[in-house]
């Protein structure tokens, strides 16, 4: 019982450093199927490589708690608040008194879900928010507004209407103002997707540069440059909300999209081996936390080869 030849020659330090290089490459840079094959080749070289990678990957997964340290975004409102404080201080200096106080920072509550996680938040006003995988939301507000910052991920809102205190969801430069509603919001990059399930809502994109009123079934996609609306059937809406039941629903979905969807929920990633495989389509309802089952189905239905490796499931023809 001994280590395989190559591993003996390399110190733990060297191996760990190579594994860390792979891990950061996979997490922070473009990652192609050929990168994956290179990594697979490296992993296959020795058990020590595989262990070092698995260990770093598992440990890195646990560093997700650091997200709790995230500083509040310096978005426009924070900036205005700071400017107001600065202006206030100038006035105070001019008056020569400290009687004025800086505006009290409204208390915010932050909720974070890990990859694969899900959380329901019940608000005092009877509203309810379901937070999907790998998401982050801050809730706050003042006398005139109820405010939610969706900093990351996806959330489904069922809002109890209060004309005197409208509910506003902000995601980057965009916002949704509820007018008595059930709606789904997802954010990523400079983009916000809003799907209205029931009631009425308005989307102000890009700091209010463009606005649109939504009807039930409308999905609005707001980016830095565009605002697009598509209409969905009630069945589409149900499918899109499948995650609240722990499932992902595919209807004629390409494997590329399906893999991306599974990878939102699982640290064990599905990797598509080629463009040909990526374009294949699949239908079905799958448990979102079980990429293995999905791979098995894809294997049987689409006659693919499935390879399990440390941290990934590779689908090839």
């Amino acid at each position, binding site marked *: 019982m001994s280590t395989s030849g190559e591993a003996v020659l390399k110190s733990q330090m060297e191996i760990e450093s190579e594994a860390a290089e792979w891990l950061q490459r996979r*997490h922070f840079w473009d990652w192609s199927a050929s990168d994956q094959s290179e990594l697979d080749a490296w992993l296959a070289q020795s058990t*020590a490589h595989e262990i070092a990678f698995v260990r770093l990957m*598992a440990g890195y997964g646990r560093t997700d708690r650091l997200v*709790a340290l995230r500083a509040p975004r310096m978005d426009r409102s924070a900036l205005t608040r700071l400017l107001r404080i600065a202006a206030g201080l100038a006035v105070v200096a001019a008056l020569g008194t400290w009687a004025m106080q800086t505006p009290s920072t409204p208390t915010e509550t932050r909720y974070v879900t890990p990859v694969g996680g899900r959380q329901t938040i019940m608000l005092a006003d009877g509203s309810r928010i379901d937070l999907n995988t790998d998401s982050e939301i801050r809730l706050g507000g003042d006398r005139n507004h109820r405010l939610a910052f969706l900093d990351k991920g996806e959330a489904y809102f069922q809002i109890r209407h209060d004309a005197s205190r409208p509910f506003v969801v902000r995601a980057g430069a965009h916002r949704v103002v509820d007018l008595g509603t059930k709606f789904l919001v997802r954010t990523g990059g400079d983009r916000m997707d809003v799907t209205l399930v029931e009631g009425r809502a308005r989307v102000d994109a890009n700091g209010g540069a463009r606005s649109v009123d939504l009807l039930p079934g409308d999905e609005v996609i707001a980016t830095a440059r565009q605002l697009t609306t598509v209409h969905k059937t009630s069945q589409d809406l149900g499918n899109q909300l499948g995650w609240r039941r722990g499932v992902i629903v595919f*209807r004629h979905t390409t494997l590329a999209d399906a893999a991306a969807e599974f990878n939102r929920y699982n640290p064990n990633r599905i990797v598509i081996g080629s463009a040909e495989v990526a374009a294949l389509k699949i239908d079905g309802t799958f448990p979102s936390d079980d990429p293995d089952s999905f791979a098995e189905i894809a294997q049987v239905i689409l006659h693919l080869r499935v390879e399990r490796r440390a941290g990934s499931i590779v689908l090839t023809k």
Partner: protein
Amino acid sequence: MARVMTHTPDTGRTFPDLRRLEAAMTSSALVDWFVREVLPLEAALMRYLRQNWRNPDEVADLRQDIYVQVYDAARKQVPTHTKAFVFQTARNLLIDRVRHDRVVPIETVPDLETLDVPGDVPSPERAAIARDDLRRLRAALDKLPPRCREAVVLGRIEGLPGRAIAVRMGVSDQAVSKHLANGIRALVNEIYGRENDREGQS
């Protein structure tokens, strides 16, 4: 991301209850077992190695050899008592080395029975450990060199991709990669409790 497109008739096909393939289990079950049962023993294992091996520079390599032996053995059969198995492997390895190197008398390797190893951690404590993670991670983050810490904060906490980190920091992609890799190693070593191992930083 998957956009479920409209105008597609519902095929009504749902997830059939297929039996999990044998091959599927082996690899991922092994990894799961290793992460769940072996890695949490690392702090205790490192303490044991430091106490029982006179050259601290060799401890990380010893740990690697122990992990490899444990992992290779578990490929054939996952041991029922992981902790006992890991420490038995460690002890045997040390004894082998002693015989081979003739550097330390065997008696300095204590019996497994006398080892101070934490018992199976009950679940309430696991929760406490999880809470403790943040405090320790934060301390580890503060210990990183400033540029390395900045890259980790932008990448792991703010969620920026590598290229955006490079732009924000005004450094090359390669420099960002290096910072991220070093930062990840330091944080993970902190998590698995390799306290004051001077090889931990590079």
